């Protein structure tokens, strides 16, 4: 399944990234997102679960069924979510490479 990249909001991207290694429950996702963003994105429970609901509806993540604790529901990436995350990362990589290239050119030109 192909997907156009750079369609995910920042918070959704961060949550997918946090779930990329293993399933996590709400608070673990919040901690991982904060860690990944060097503390720049601090999600509260409201913002987290609003995004989780949207990602769930878009079938980018899903609840892990076999969990006994009702309050600690674990979430994991779906195949579609993994494809979206990969596409988003590809976009960032391409953009970053281009930006570095241009910046390097700019530096060279400024000395010329």
């Amino acid at each position, binding site marked *: 399944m192909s997907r156009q990249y750079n369609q995910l909001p920042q918070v959704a991207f961060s949550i997918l990234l946090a779930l990329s290694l293993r399933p996590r*429950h*709400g*608070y673990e996702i*919040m901690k991982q997102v904060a860690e990944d963003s060097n503390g720049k994105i*601090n*999600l*509260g*429970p*409201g*913002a*987290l*679960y*609003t995004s*989780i*609901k949207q990602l769930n509806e878009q079938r980018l993540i899903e609840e892990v069924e076999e969990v006994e604790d*009702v*309050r*600690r*529901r674990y979430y994991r990436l779906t195949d579609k979510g993994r494809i979206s995350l990969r596409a988003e990362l590809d976009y960032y990589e391409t953009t970053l490479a281009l930006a570095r290239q241009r910046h390097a050119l700019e530096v060279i030109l400024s000395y010329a």
Partner: protein
Amino acid sequence: MPRRLSLYERLLHLYPAPYRKRYGDQMIQAVSDMLEDTTSSSQRSLVWARIVIDLPLSLIKTQLQYAGGIMHNETPGYIKRSGIFTGALVLPFFSALIANGLDKLLFDQNLYGSWLWHWPIIGFWVLWLPGTALTVALLSYGVYTFTPERKNRTNWLRRALDVPHAWPVILPGIVAFGILFILAFHDSVHCWIQNPIHFVTRYHQTLQCTERGYLGG
């Protein structure tokens, strides 16, 4: 359960019921985990400060999404159509005000001397169109309240309070009512405003006064 956490649990009742049923317990658990992870009272205060900001923002977002979802899937077609129609009827009022504001801002003048601010044109956008909008909104709301659908029979009071389904007509209805209410008390409308009671009790003189062209003249 700590007092603040039970207050948080109570506040979760402000979220739409399906959302609360699905995520309410998980949200409480997340707050509980956040608090357990703190070691000092200042850290706990920071956690609560985050929640104080987070809760209303996510609440508004969730309610809007919920209302949007309901409108898309469950609101009857005639309510949606009436909503669009009444919204379109109150639009000229705001367009005229914006045009006047822009004229003031860009050219330091106003449109009070223009055709837009003279009878009968002004009557359309300040009175007849909002009046029609209010009437249509009230009719649609009345139909929705007193004619239950076959598959969803509920009593009229419950339907009258069913804002998530009827908001597309309630909102423009309130706006139209607001326009008419402001109009009745706005001092730029000389004939109508000198005395609101005068307006109500001597309606014909008010209309005559307006037709003579005092309005905005």
